[in-house]
């Protein structure tokens, strides 16, 4: 019992900490601060309108209509001689109150309904979905017109109606959040420890939806103000009330005489809604962890690529290597201006027809190294040192801070290709497998579509697919993971590359399929005599396929050498650790069965 109480206190505490830093971050953001100030001023003006306004909202001086601003009427008068400034102040009262009313109704309906639907689901959710699909198929203004026709002009009735109409937005938001949290372990723990559903919802789930709801409310208040003013502009509001929409309508009637009458209510509307929109954005930014990396730094770095366009000659005597990576460093700029290195001072080479394994655990920088050879690093990545050369030409020359895409685009797909790790996510679900095989051949080799189709069939056969015709016509979701990986391998060799980079090509597959895919890779490699860089964490795969191996840890190269040499006689401690974590060839450990029996007893 005590164990379940402690984490609750902890969540409560982190909750407040997060909130207070979020508020501080919100006020630090100039746009956030500005929107808070603008809204505060508008609220204060509305609260003290009866004191601040020099005239009553409907006080009319018939002798002074459409007057220009002077010391008495600081913003002038309208066509009935009413003071514009006073009406603007009273209008802010109604505008703000109606927005709050609308949001309150929407929250009162949408939030509990979303909680229940998300937490329990079932019939309640099905019914709610029906109601929502009806509510969302109705344009707000048309509904408000209907309400007006039925109940007559009333700001309050129309805003309650609009609140009902817009409540699905809270419902959907809450339901999504609750669904995501419902099966979290800490909610399970609370349930197991005997807390009632009500207190779980109150304590754990409400804290999750609180922030999105505040953001949503800012937006909905803005929409409510817009639609309410629209209705009043049409002359369908309550004519006895001074509102911004009525003032707009009044100004529009006198647009030929005094167009400035339009300006003030329009400004008031835009300023209020704008402040709400900015506030919502600023809260969102404040809640998103991590500050943004400054853009100028990136563009400055990018600019220097252009300065470095001259073609440097590679070091003499290294031209014969298919790929040579020299002292490569890859890093990511951080918010504080530093650069986090993920690859540091890595050097190796691959020759034609050779299979090089890059081994390391996740986070060792092996994939980043592979992607820098392909020129497919994420946009934010920077080359922080070293060079890469492909077949005697630099793709990253000394001083470059990005891979030269111009040079790589001539090589990529044509001479160097790629087999990804996860087969399903690497095929575009919207196109057939045939299309995705044929198009690169048409683009890269310049052959006709029918010629490419013939080759694609042959390739599918080569990678061991039994019914090439059927697979060719299939969409990616219609084939198995193993088959998709075979398709990707077919794609990788389709344009007869000199080098294939395979990034954990078997990790995502079932064990039996793994062996088949490795067989396939080995067969293709020796038949086509292509160079392969095999990125893996698995020494079993390495011993199966590779000629040489490079071991990486924490972005650095630990050991390099002939695969048999390293397997038999690893020099570095890290390599030994990696090798000893292999399961193959080990004496079986104690059987699990006995412990099960113990438990059963």
């Amino acid at each position, binding site marked *: 019992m005590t164990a379940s109480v402690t984490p609750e206190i902890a969540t409560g505490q982190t909750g407040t900490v997060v909130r207070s830093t979020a508020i501080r971050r919100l006020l630090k953001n100039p746009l956030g601060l500005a929107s808070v100030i603008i809204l505060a001023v508008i609220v204060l003006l509305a609260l003290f309108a009866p004191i601040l306004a020099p005239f009553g909202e409907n006080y009319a001086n018939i002798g002074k209509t459409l007057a220009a601003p002077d010391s008495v009427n600081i913003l002038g008068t309208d066509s009935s001689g009413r003071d514009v400034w006073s009406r603007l102040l009273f209008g802010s009262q109604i505008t703000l109150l109606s927005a709050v009313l609308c949001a309150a109704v929407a929250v009162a309906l949408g939030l509990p309904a979303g909680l229940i639907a998300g937490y329990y689901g079932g019939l309640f959710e099905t019914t709610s979905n029906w109601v929502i699909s*009806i509510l969302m*198929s109705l*344009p707000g203004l048309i509904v408000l017109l209907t309400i007006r026709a039925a109940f007559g002009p009333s700001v309050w009735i129309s805003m309650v109606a609009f609140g009902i109409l817009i409540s699905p937005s809270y419902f959907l938001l809450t339901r999504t959040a609750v669904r995501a949290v419902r099966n979290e372990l800490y909610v399970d723990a609370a349930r197991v420890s005997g807390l009632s559903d009500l207190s779980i919802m109150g304590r754990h789930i409400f804290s999750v939806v609180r922030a999105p709801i505040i953001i949503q409310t800012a937006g909905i208040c803005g929409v409510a103000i817009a639609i309410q003013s629209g209705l009043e502009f049409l002359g369908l509001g309550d004519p006895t009330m001074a509102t911004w929409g009525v003032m707009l309508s009044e100004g529009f009637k006198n647009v030929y005489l005094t167009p400035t009458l339009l300006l003030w209510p329009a400004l008031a*509307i835009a300023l209020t809604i704008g402040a709400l*929109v900015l506030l919502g954005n600023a809260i969102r930014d404040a809640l998103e962890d991590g500050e943004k990396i400054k853009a100028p730094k990136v563009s400055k770095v990018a600019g220097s690529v252009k300065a470095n366009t001259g073609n440097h000659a590679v070091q003499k005597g290294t031209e014969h290597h298919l790929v040579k990576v020299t002292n490569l460093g890859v890093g990511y700029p951080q918010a504080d201006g530093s650069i986090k290195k993920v690859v540091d001072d890595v050097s190796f080479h691959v020759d034609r027809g050779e299979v090089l394994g890059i081994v390391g655990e996740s986070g060792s920088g092996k994939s980043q190294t592979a992607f820098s050879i392909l020129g497919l690093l994420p946009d934010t990545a920077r080359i922080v040192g070293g060079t890469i050369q492909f077949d005697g030409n630099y793709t990253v020359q000394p001083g470059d801070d990005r891979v030269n895409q111009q040079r790589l685009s001539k090589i*990529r797909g044509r001479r160097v290709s790629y087999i990804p790790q996860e087969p399903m996510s690497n095929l575009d679900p919207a196109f057939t497998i045939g299309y995705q095989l044929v198009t690169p051949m048409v683009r890269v080799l310049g052959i006709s579509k029918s010629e490419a189709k013939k080759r694609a069939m042959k390739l599918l056969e080569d990678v061991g697919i039994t019914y090439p015709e059927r697979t060719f016509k299939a969409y990616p979701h219609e084939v198995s993971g193993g088959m998709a990986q075979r398709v990707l391998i077919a794609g990788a060799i389709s344009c007869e590359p000199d080098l294939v980079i395979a990034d954990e090509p078997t990790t995502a597959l079932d064990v039996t399929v793994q062996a088949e895919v490795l067989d396939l890779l080995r067969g293709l490699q020796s038949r086509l005599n292509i160079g392969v860089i095999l990125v893996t964490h698995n020494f079993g795969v390495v011993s199966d396929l590779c000629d040489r191996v490079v071991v990486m840890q924490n972005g650095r190269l630990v050991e390099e050498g002939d695969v048999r040499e390293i397997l038999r006689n690893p020099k570095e401690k890290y390599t030994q650790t990696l090798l000893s974590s292999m399961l193959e060839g080990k004496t079986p450990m104690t059987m699990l069965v006995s412990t099960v029996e113990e438990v059963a007893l």
Partner: protein
Amino acid sequence: MIKFVIKRLASGVVVLLAVSVLTFSLLYAAGGSIARNILGDTATAEQVALKEHELGLDQPLFVRYFTWLSNALKGDLGSSWFSSEPVASSLATRVPVTMTMVISAMIIIAILATLIGSAAAVKRGWVDRVVQIGAVIGDSVPGFVIGIFLVTILAIQLKMFPATSTIAPGVPASAWIASMALPVVALIINGVTGGAQQIRSAVIKQFEKDYVRTLRSRGIGEGEILFKHVLRSAAPAGLTVLSLQLIGMLGGVVIIEQIFALPGIGPLAVTATSQSDLPVVMGIVMYTVVVVIVVNLIVDLLNGWLNPKVRVS
């Protein structure tokens, strides 16, 4: 495919019926003194009773609803209580004007939002910042306020466009275009700024997908990746945004037409509402729901065409 369409149409009919019941009961149950409203305060009690009988208001609500429904199924939506014009025929003359504007606005929004949003996603930098700021401004200024300023500045002050429409049957196309240019601009601004923002995030999200990296590794160019693969995958998200915008626009266009004095649904809706001309209001609600159902059906079909997984099931 045909089964899918029939299923969606059937559920559309259910929604239509549900909305008609709701609207009908709301309109007729709430207003107490409809006949007196029409006749004015000077009418005697007998005159009011006679009028109520004439309009069928002395019958129970559900009887009236079924009378309305059976007539509506025959294409008769009743007549205006004030002008006696049949609702169906006034809708028939006005819907083309409104739908011309709404459809052209939606097409322009779809094209501009896609181009601007993709540019912001791909180029980042200043284009992206302009799109972000534009989205905030678009969210802040309601479309009808933009319309008011367009008409005040461009039509009334600078006289570049007609301030009120010259649209009527038989008027040359150039007059239609001149009359509709400003209203359409007023309708699209919020849609373009909001839509571009949404397309931008959808495109950025798609560019982070694994298959994009694989396409690049196969030597496919950036242009082809954007236009053939990324935009296609981002399209369902874009379509959802556009369909929501269109639903909103069916309301927004009412105000815009009022501002520009266009003979569309707008002025009819405003007059009918302020007079509580219930048959007309009912007809306008029905027309709106039908448009929404058709739009949702089209969006579903497009999504099915775009996504092979949906197509199969």
